């Protein structure tokens, strides 16, 4: 047995002269750490056996795959994007928007507008390419494409005249023979999201998500969140989607299995036929991401910025509080926590649109990402950036890209005074 020391429970930190305070970001899974390791700590309320399982999953999450045969970690490829979970979700955080010969931390999903999907309701795979472009192959196996990423700058002004710059990505996708990808193929460029706190998101009851949805905008607030309805391969049925930039996966187990298969070329029972990793490995990886704790907020008073968050309308989609229901992992059940997401799909406008549907999500919709831990991005992964494709170099840029249902909120931010904008950003940096 090892002398394992789980992060201390937030209760220890709450001795605050009786002052009212917001719920801890991850409820009892909150970890008291604001260092570069803040995303990598197990939830402090795990039972000993759960902590053991978490640690086993940690080993799997870090495992670097190689081409078989090999004494350890065989199964990479033959086509892949990178060789380890942690290679893209570095320090359990987000990846960088980068494609490199040595391994890519971002990826491009592909599909056809018409045809027959492999799973009911899923995007239609591209013959010969499937649903995701693999830009690497093991030795002697040509990659499907070479991906070149370029950025185009554009300028704008805040309401007070202060200029700002944004950058938009352009991808050049070429087959090994140099030919360009068929332009009829729909593409979606995405960077890897952070993986902590995910079990709490899995534990939000379906009914709560459905109750928050307002597909026809009956309340007339301009916000029409929708649940994605996706195929659950274990249930053999349609379920609510929660994970992925368009909520295309219903469970962490399915998300993990799909990532093994599509990102690393490591097959398992659910995806790809012959199992290069068994169910236990996939389950352990899912368990690991389910049970990573959520960092506590930074010290300091950011109440003014939090009020702006509400007043600007950010909280209409970035729902501050959620409550979990029952969950097989006791540490995750019946928690009140602050993820700042409704897990619903929203139209973010034409500038962010990928024009590639995924189950019920249309080409302009994205799932609201959680904002917890946002203020630690620069500490955990200096140089990391924001939004689904990493185009936003700062949180302010990310806000300025919001359109569609979020346009009114963005405009309130854009036309606010510099002091008000700074207040909001100070609040977000404390998350």
């Amino acid at each position, binding site marked *: 047995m*090892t*002398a394992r*020391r*789980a*992060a*201390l429970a937030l209760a*220890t*930190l709450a001795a*605050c*002269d009786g*002052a009212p*305070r917001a719920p*801890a970001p991850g409820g009892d899974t909150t970890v*008291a*750490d*604001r*260092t*570069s*390791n803040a995303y*990598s*700590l*197990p939830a*402090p309320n795990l039972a000993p056996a759960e902590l053991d399982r978490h*640690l086993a999953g*940690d*080993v799997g999450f*870090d495992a*670097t795959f*190689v*081409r*078989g045969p*090999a*004494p*350890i*970690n065989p199964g990479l490829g033959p086509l892949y994007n990178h*060789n380890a979970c*942690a*290679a893209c979700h*570095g*320090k359990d955080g987000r990846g*960088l928007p980068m494609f490199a*010969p*040595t*391994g890519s931390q971002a990826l491009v999903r592909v599909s056809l507008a018409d045809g027959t999907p492999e799973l009911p309701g899923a995007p239609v795979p591209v013959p010969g390419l499937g649903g995701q472009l693999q830009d*690497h192959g093991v*030795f002697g196996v040509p990659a499907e494409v070479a991906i070149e990423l370029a950025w185009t700058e554009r300028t704008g002004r805040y309401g007070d005249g202060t200029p700002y710059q944004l950058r938009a990505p352009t991808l050049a996708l070429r087959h090994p023979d140099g030919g360009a990808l068929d332009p009829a193929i729909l593409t979606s460029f995405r960077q890897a999201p952070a993986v902590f706190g995910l079990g709490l998101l899995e534990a939000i009851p379906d009914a709560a998500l459905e109750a928050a949805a307002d597909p026809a905008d009956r309340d007339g607030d301009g916000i029409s969140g929708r649940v994605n309805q996706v195929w659950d391969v274990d249930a053999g049925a349609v379920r609510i989607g929660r994970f992925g930039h368009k909520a295309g996966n219903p469970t962490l187990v399915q998300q993990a299995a799909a990532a093994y298969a599509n990102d690393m070329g490591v097959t398992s029972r659910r995806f790809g036929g012959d199992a290069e990793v068994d169910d236990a490995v996939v389950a352990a990886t899912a368990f690991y991401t389910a049970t990573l704790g959520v960092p*506590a*907020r930074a*010290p*300091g*008073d*950011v*109440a003014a910025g939090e009020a702006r968050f509400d007043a600007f309308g950010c909280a209409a989609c970035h729902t501050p509080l959620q409550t979990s229901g029952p969950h097989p992992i006791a540490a995750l059940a019946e928690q009140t926590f602050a993820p700042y997401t409704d897990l619903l799909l929203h139209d973010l406008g034409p500038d962010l649109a990928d024009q590639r549907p995924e189950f019920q999500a249309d080409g302009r919709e994205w799932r609201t990402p959680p904002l917890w831990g946002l*203020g630690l991005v*620069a*500490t955990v*992964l*200096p*140089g990391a950036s924001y939004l689904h494709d990493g185009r936003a170099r700062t949180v302010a840029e990310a806000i300025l890209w919001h359109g569609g249902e979020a346009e009114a909120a963005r405009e309130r931010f854009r036309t606010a005074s510099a002091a008000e904008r700074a207040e909001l950003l100070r609040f977000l*940096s404390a998350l």
Partner: protein
Amino acid sequence: MTARLLAALPALALAACGDGGTTSPGFTDHQVIADFADRVVIPTYALLDERAAALHDAALALRAAPTPANLTAAQAAWVATRVPWEQSEGFLFGPVSAQGFDPAMDSWPVDRTDLEAVIASSDPLTATYVRNLPETQKGFHAIEYLVFGEARDRVATDLDARELEYLTGLTHELTTVTAALEASWTTGAPAYRDVFATAGAAGNTAYPSLDAAAQEILVGMSGICDEVANGKIADPYDAHDPNLVESQYSYNSILDFADNLRSVENAYTGDVPAAGSTGRGLDEVVRAIDPALDARFRAELADAIAKIQAIPDPFRDAITTPAAYPAIEAAQAAIRTVQTTIDGDLTASVR
């Protein structure tokens, strides 16, 4: 690579009182933070770069004349380069992880299937070609495999021209990575030295307080202890599986572990003896408050290093030799003692 990072810092006290609660200022010694960047991190990376260049020179000499003496020299240069790298693993934050320098140098396991396939091919091994190879076919352990063989049994005359060409391609690529790692702290916009050493300055979002920077140092120290005791030693030992041992080709594992603990010592003292660098460390802060704690912690560190060195070499054999088990477990226990002190008394003391 990634530490298992279980240690929480009880004294971190993120005074979760968002409104009106009082917070202690915490750690306020700016010199310790600046010296950590300038006198610990940068000198360690500079030494790594210097020794990687010497390793490349040794590989070139071996390629020019694959003699036993040149092979021995290349092996010694590999071991010497390993020292500053392992002594940097107590501070794996910032560009080393975010910009991928760690996997570019230290991926494990080696993809021997594809490494052999590249060598067997007729692909020209240009610098660009080698740079673009996957990380599992490059770096310390691929070089280690070539110069030490599968079980420290390499014979110079076994290396053919193609293997020697591949070797020098790898050592050259290693020097570009070590140079870029050092540069990431010293130049660029921003140099990471400026991010860390300006902790607490207005607009520093990565380290909004000196306290946050001090916590980063302490978490790194704790994290590498956890990684060595509960990962690098425990994973292969618990499974009694030599395949899980890092640096298994060179039999260098025990030196690796000891240098990991020296990384903790360097982070604590603000000094890097191997690089001839000295600075103001956390030890001076601790001594001013609790000299007995400082003395105890130093003794615990020395004990942990001694117990690691007492594991019978090579580690990959020790994990399947029952007579060696007590020494392995004693080393683990000593490292955990160091970690417990970091997480508890030391953290409480410096705040």
